[in-house]
């Protein structure tokens, strides 16, 4: 670019050398442009100047500028200096625009340039981006077809297959046969599915020469990134796109100046793009995955420490876990540590000292857990474990952090607080897990075994109580039968029984045993009637018997006779002195029983 300006400056110097008058002029590369088309405006002054004031360019997109360049030429003893400022612009809208003059300070005075008129037409679909390149020289507008062979971008990826979380570096490098390149548009890709870390590059803008595919190229690194895949599968590392201006030598010089300075040049806008790459991302193996693994990948050393190990309750201590090494340090999550429940634990703070390089991120990440013990005593912090996936061994590794003893002294205030809180606390629930298996030997039964309920034994057992009741009732009724049979029997035998008693009374009559005689007569009568009429002994009375006899249609004469005999017996028993005809009573009783037997037989 400098060269172009140099030429312009030289042309101006050549024509205006004699005049030596100061001229500040503005020129546009195109007087007519299309919307979106790039063009350049240049302000040049042939003197030493400063304080360039930009014109109002609100109607245009300023793609680059103001850029400054200067050239000094000594020719035929004359000294010529040119200073120029240029912008690369693109038009926003159609129309005719007048760009106001720019102002520059020379010595004590200020000088204005001319205004520039630009006509903006409709954007032309046909226009080749390479052809509409920003070119200050109106004679050179066509790009050569082989430009893209002479300039390209390579994306260099250092691995083709990585594990999840393993770093991969990608470098976008420009290879060019041209040693002068201006980037007008550089689209850096976005890496989807990756965590990206930029690798800082040296501030070296110079092009380096490198041999590639058998020839020498000017090369420059455009971007260097470290990528950490966040999902497994096939991920794409996208291409980098750029539009740049290169200066191409024309085959034949057309005018004097071209030939004089080694041929003609033209500036060509080229769109270049690197090839996209595919990266195979492998998931971490499932077998042997430690429970505390949370995505750390690389090679790490882990250490734990505390700042104090002898404190008072209520004072804070810091438990520090320092992970150092090479790997996805920036993505490391704080390990979940189970501190004793008496310790109030706060979310850990992160401290990083991490550098990104092509081999991955190196350094340390420190997790600081602030802990405040709430009760005195001796406690152990840990042991804890920290697991990561080792990319070199392709296996999980677990580092055990040894336990650290902490002794906490009780403070007075602490006691007051616990006393105020009341009746102590129930054990804190730490986690929930299922109840352990039952270890007693089970009482195994065949799966198809029938339950007891509704089985034959069940039915038989439930039939037992009703059967027992029925049995009881049967026995009872049979007993009742037997007792009623007895009274029938007695009814049948009543006559005989009475005869027996009378016989006994006859014997008593012979021995003249009065008391026993009357008693026997009395018993013979009542016994006979009681059995015959089925009257219980207790209910026997003269009146009742008479009533019953009447029902049985015994003649009243017999009833009267009965009543007389009973009265006689009673009288004789309670008045022993009375003289009565014992044999008459005996005979009458015999006669009465015989008489009644006729009626009572049925």
């Amino acid at each position, binding site marked *: 670019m400098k060269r172009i300006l140099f030429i312009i400056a030289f042309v101006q110097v050549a024509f205006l050398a004699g005049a030596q008058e100061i001229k500040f002029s503005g020129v546009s590369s195109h007087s007519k442009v299309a919307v979106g088309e790039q063009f350049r405006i240049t302000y040049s002054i042939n003197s030493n100047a400063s304080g360039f004031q930009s014109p109002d360019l609100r109607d245009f997109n300023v793609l680059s500028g103001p850029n400054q360049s200067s050239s000094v030429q000594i020719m035929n003893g004359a000294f010529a200096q040119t200073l120029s400022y240029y912008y690369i612009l693109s038009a926003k809208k159609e129309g005719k625009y007048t760009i106001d003059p720019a102002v520059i300070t020379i010595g004590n005075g200020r000088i204005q340039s001319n205004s520039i008129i630009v006509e903006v037409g409709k954007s032309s679909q046909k226009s080749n981006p390479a052809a509409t390149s920003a070119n200050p020289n109106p004679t050179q507008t066509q790009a050569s077809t082989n430009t893209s062979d002479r300039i390209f971008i390579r994306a260099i990826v250092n691995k083709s297959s990585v594990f999840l979380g393993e770093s991969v570096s990608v470098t976008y490098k420009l290879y060019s046969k041209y040693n002068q390149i201006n980037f007008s548009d550089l689209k850096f890709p976005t890496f989807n599915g990756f965590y990206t870390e930029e690798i800082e590059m040296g501030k070296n803008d110079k092009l380096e020469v490198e041999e590639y595919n058998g020839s020498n190229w000017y090369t420059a690194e455009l971007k260097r990134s470290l990528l950490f895949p966040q999902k497994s599968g096939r991920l794409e590392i996208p291409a980098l796109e750029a539009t740049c201006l290169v200066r191409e030598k024309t085959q034949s010089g057309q005018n004097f100046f071209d030939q004089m300075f080694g041929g003609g040049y033209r500036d060509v806008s080229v769109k270049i793009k690197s090839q996209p790459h595919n990266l195979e991302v492998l998931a971490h193996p499932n077998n042997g995955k430690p429970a505390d693994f949370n995505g750390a990948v690389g090679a790490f050393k882990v250490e734990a420490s505390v700042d104090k190990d002898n404190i008072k309750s209520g004072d804070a201590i810091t438990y520090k876990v320092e992970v150092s090494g090479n790997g996805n340090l920036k993505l490391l999550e704080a390990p979940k540590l189970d501190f004793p429940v008496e310790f109030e634990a706060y979310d850990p703070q992160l401290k990083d000292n991490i550098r990104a390089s092509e081999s991955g991120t190196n350094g340390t990440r420190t997790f600081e857990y602030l802990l405040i013990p709430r009760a005195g005593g001796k406690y152990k912090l840990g042991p804890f474990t920290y697991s990561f996936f080792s990319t070199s061994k392709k296996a999980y590794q677990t580092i055990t952090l040894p336990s650290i003893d902490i002794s906490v002294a009780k403070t007075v205030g602490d006691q007051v607080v616990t006393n105020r809180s009341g009746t102590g606390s129930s054990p804190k629930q730490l986690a*929930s*897990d*299922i*109840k*352990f*298996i*039952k*270890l*007693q*030997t*089970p*009482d*195994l*039964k*065949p*799966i*198809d075994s029938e*339950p*007891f*309920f*509704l089985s034959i034994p*069940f039915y038989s*057992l*439930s039939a*037992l*109580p*009703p059967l*027992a*009741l029925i049995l*009881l*009732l049967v026995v*009872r009724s049979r007993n009742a039968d037997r007792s009623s049979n007895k009274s029938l029997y007695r009814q049948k035998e009543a006559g005989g029984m009475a005869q027996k008693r009378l016989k006994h009374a006859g014997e008593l009559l012979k021995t003249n045993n009065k008391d026993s005689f009357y008693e026997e007569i009395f018993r013979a009568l009542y016994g006979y009637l009681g059995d015959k009429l089925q009257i219980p002994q207790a209910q026997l009375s003269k009146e009742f018997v008479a009533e019953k006899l009447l029902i049985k249609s015994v003649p009243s004469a017999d009833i009267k006779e009965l009543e007389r005999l009973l009265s006689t017996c009673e009288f004789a028993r309670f008045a022993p002195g009375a003289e009565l005809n014992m044999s008459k009573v005996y005979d009458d009783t015999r006669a009465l029983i015989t008489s009644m037997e006729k009626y009572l037989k049925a």
Partner: protein
Amino acid sequence: MKKQILLLITLFSAFQLLATPAQDNVIKASEAYKKNDFAQAILLYQQVLEESKEHAPEVYFNLGNAYYKVTDYPNAILNYERATKLAPADEDILFNLSLANQKIEDHIEPVPELFYIRWFKGIRNLGDQDVWAILFLVVFSAAFGMLMLYFQANSSSKKRLGFYSSLGLFVFSAFVLTLAFSMHLKQSNHNEAIVFSGSVSVKSSPVEAGTGLFVIHAGTKVKITDELGDWLRIRIADGNEGWILSSDLERI
């Protein structure tokens, strides 16, 4: 002769001491579980159930635990459900079942039951059907005992005691018999099932083209209310109904 008898006696006692293969497997499985070898424990418990065809609530419970530990929650729930079916009053089983139910995708709000049904089920689940059957026999016999007292007693106060207490005991025995029947139905019916397919669309009709009404996921318990070929009509805890292929389910 003496020797032969001795041999017979030793053989007999040896048989007594030797556990059955199923018991042996249960002991081995528990050992494997203690060593966190859950896959081996599952294998051994399954052998008891499938090859020896023997079961006990403890076997289902321990198998459920092993499945829980390998995060196979549908199988864990299935076995816990089978365990509660045999031992409805065991609180450990209910506890683990509720934990396993928290791990699955569906958390269906059940339709609240009327309070007396809840009470009835609460009482019923205190024992299995045989417990209720034995209690029934005891109460039933006592009722008849009191009836006998009524018939045999001489004094009217004893008769009254016999009459009223037998009446009360008869009512009680009827209640216990109801509990036994209810438990019997619950224990011998296989109309509940666990979903085993990861995600199932429940259809409005028993055809593949039926409208999908709602989606249930593995581990959810459903009640089977009807059957048509390969299709089962199911109801979930919130009362929603639909048709599902029988291959998506495993009956409890």
